[in-house]
């Protein structure tokens, strides 16, 4: 069994993720869906990446693979000095536990737990987490900590999900449409938090969005189409989340 250890002080701009020739084929009965058709990609430490693309283009699939939730059908994915495509389930679990923060497209909160307890689910098993209260304050929910998800609006639930993903101070933050359910103002609050985590902790951040405006925040914008990288460009300068308008 390979064990993922903290990186031996990687050089500042070294590639954190190295993705080569990754394909993903889903087979359901007779039907074959080629979700990814050959992705080559390097992500650097502290880089803020926005992933765009039409529905069904493979964004979530790619994010799952980067997060160690899924393995590609072929190709390799390296995180620092570990080949995620060769890790067994236990090592992938440890990789997620120690390095990755997720924000899911559908929040996935535990309905039986309060906001604070939902964050604690993650901080309970993290090495040096923020206090759940602090994480919730960061997303502007300091006064709703003891509410259950059913007592929160969709946007508030989404923010709990963000608080939960950043509370462990992850090396990698992967967000699937984190602002999908939010109005402009709350959306910006959330993006600010993500931006701050990225900046202050040097967290490598990947955000999937359908909102092209958000692309302005990114160091790099990658567009997927039909399972391939259709385009990729760097922003000359990142726009602060606060000044986004849509």
């Amino acid at each position: 069994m390979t064990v993922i250890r903290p990186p031996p002080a990687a050089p500042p701009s070294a590639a954190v993720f190295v993705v080569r020739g990754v394909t993903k084929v889903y087979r359901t009965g007779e039907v074959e869906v080629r979700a990814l058709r050959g992705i080559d990609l390097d992500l650097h430490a502290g880089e803020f990446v926005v992933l765009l693309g039409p529905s069904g283009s493979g964004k979530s699939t790619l994010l799952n693979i980067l997060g160690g939730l899924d393995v590609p059908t072929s190709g390799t994915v390296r995180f620092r000095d570990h080949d995620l495509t060769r890790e067994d389930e236990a090592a992938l679990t440890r990789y997620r536990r120690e390095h990755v923060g997720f924000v899911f497209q559908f929040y996935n909160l535990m309905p039986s737990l309060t906001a604070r307890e939902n964050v604690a689910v993650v901080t309970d098993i993290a090495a040096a987490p923020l206090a759940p209260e602090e994480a919730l304050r960061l997303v502007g929910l300091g006064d709703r900590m003891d509410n259950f998800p059913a007592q929160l609006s969709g946007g508030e639930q989404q923010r709990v999900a963000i608080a939960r993903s950043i509370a462990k101070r992850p090396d990698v933050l992967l967000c699937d449409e984190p602002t999908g359910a939010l109005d402009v103002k709350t959306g910006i609050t959330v993006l600010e938090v993500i931006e701050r985590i990225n900046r202050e902790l040097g967290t490598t951040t990947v955000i999937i969005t359908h909102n092209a405006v958000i692309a302005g925040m990114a160091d790099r914008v990658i567009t997927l189409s039909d399972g391939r990288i259709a385009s990729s460009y760097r922003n000359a300068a990142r726009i602060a989340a606060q000044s986004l308008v849509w």
Partner: protein
Amino acid sequence: MTALQTKLIRDLAYLRTQAVAIALVIGCGVATFVMSVSVLRSLERTRDRYYDDFRFAQLFVQVKRAPRGLAERLAEIPGVAAVQTRVVAELSLDLDDMAEAAVGRMVSIPDFGEPALNRLHLRRGRMPDPERRGEVLVNEAFALAHRLEPGDRLRALLNGRREELTVVGVALSPEYIYQIRAGDLFPDDRRFGVFWMRERPLAAAFDLTEAFNDASFALMHGAVEPEVIRRIDDLLAPYGGLGAVGRADQVSHRYVSDELAQLRAMASVPPAIFLLVAAFVLNVVLNRVIATQREQIAALKAFGYTPAELGWHFGQLALLIVLAGVAIGAAVGGWLGGGLAEMYGRFFRFARMDYRLDPAVVLLAGGFSVLAGAFGVTAALWRVMRLPAAEAMRPEAPARYRVTWLERTGLLRRLSQVMRMAVRQIERHPLRAALSTLGVALGVAVMILGSFTRDVVNYIIDFQFGAVQHYDYTITLYEPAAPDALPALARLPGVLRAEPYRAVPVRLAHGRRTHRAGLLGLAEDRELLQLRDTAERVVAVPADGLLLSEALARLLDVRRGDVLQVQVLEGSRPVRSLAVTDTLRDFSGLSAYMDLAALNRFMREGRLLSGAFLRIDPAAEARLHARLKATPRVAGASSQHAALRGFQDTLSENLLRMRLFNVAFAGIIAFGVVYNAARITLSERARELATLRVIGLTRAEVSGTLLGEVALLTLAALPLGLGLGRLLAGLAVKALETETQRFPLVVASSTYAAAAVTVLAAALVSGLVVRRRIDGLDLVAVLKSRD
């Protein structure tokens, strides 16, 4: 507390009614197990200690009259560790609180000190003084039935002579834990009692001075019982030995052992059923919990919780339910066990009933329950552990419904929309529906299993007193009498009819198998005793041949037409071969029957009779008793009707209590299964039902679609349960079978009906409870939730 632990507690609180229902089913299993095993162990421990402490003998033999000097030769038999010779005699008692005479068995104790074997436990009073005439100890069961205390005096007939006896003490003996006469169906502590007297006065009263007519033996370790028996029989044959028997044929020991066998059966089948049902319901509930939490599980995995942590998380949910059930069951079982032990204490007289709730038994029950729970949830937990983490990113695909095959047959076209939904739901989860049906059916079956023994007892009583035995009294004479004794008996007041019988002890041999039995000679012109074959048809006694009870035929491996060696064990001990012409249905023991005249010829005696069966006019019963008491030749007059009444009184109280528990047990199973089935359907279809309500269907219509499913399952379960109940009852009858006892499988229709009604009621109650939840459905919340 970690967040996951908090979640566990909240999940459990959310499931509380379902959890309680499951815990109760487990509790029933644990309670029956703990109750029967701890009582079983207590009885075994109590009995074994009692046997050891009071030196219960291992072999028993009766003999006509053997000189006392023979005792030493008996003691020299290899394998014999100790011998106790005694005088044992029947006496009749005239008691103030009873019109009829009671029968006593008087057993001698050595003139000085304690018997070497079958020692007595003196409860009250003192040992009899050998110098004083008529001092006796009385067995506690008889003393209690007549409120006898030391100092009381009794009028008795000993060997046809009047004698006044003085009770000096109340005692117990390992030989008479269960006080019943061989051949009787029921114990009758009022009409039969055991007494002890010093040997010298007893021997003198029965002309057995310097002699004995009974001996008990303790064996050395490793002694070969049949070999020792053979040597004892050889030594005693010239003196009228009746053949030695081991503990297995000792009446009290046999009854106690049979009871232990029953407890053993009770400790296995019903708990297994409860635990299986619990395992199934646990499986369904946990599967549903996991299905509703699919995305939560996936998210937890995405956060880095290991499969083992998540498996353990849900495993704990099941474990807590199981442990709650074990705790309930252990408490209830311990309490019930105390009651059962007390009940046994009334039938079985031990020096001290040592009932303990053994922690090891509770641990064992806990172990079995956890195993059953694990059996139920392992697959579900495995699914949790294997659930791909990537699922967290996608919502669950909508369930796939199909037009069902039942609908394609066109049968359902006539059904209401409500029933159609119910049928589709069942067809969508055919395995679950089948298992739910089976679970409810097991509820029905458990109830039948718990209550059918009453039917068996009733059947035996009806058979014995309705079809076989038409006499009211059996008269036993001290000595076989000439035929003129019969008209004398017939002339007694109130006697409507008297029929003679001759009873002799025999040893029957078929090939290498031999067994002792009572051989009864019956008159040809007979009304009062109808023998019936195994199909319950009346059979005539053959002019020359034998009829055997089923049990005896089985023991000897005899079929109709086989020839037996018959050796009479009294008088001139004649031997001859006789053919078995038929086997008889007979629940009262090991008997053989032949024609009275043929038996008299075989015995080479005149037309002697041992006693008579009497039918009497109940109005004259009191006068008859008075006359019988005054007739010295009559050793005893016994009425099994009277015994039956006494027995039924004691039994009915216990049966009522047992029935209450059976109803509770069956109800709990049915409730547990039906309630959970309904709750799970409700959880799966909450959105659908809420939508129907929003569209404008009434509450009644909406609950109808759900309760329709429950009703279908329950109705399907009833016939299955009745069949299963009969099957289990059959297995139970087999499990209770001993060499000498075999019970008929009888389940009365009232038992079937009670089981069906109980389970229907429980199903109805669970339906109503769920209906209240449907009525209270929060439409907005349900439609808003993404689940």
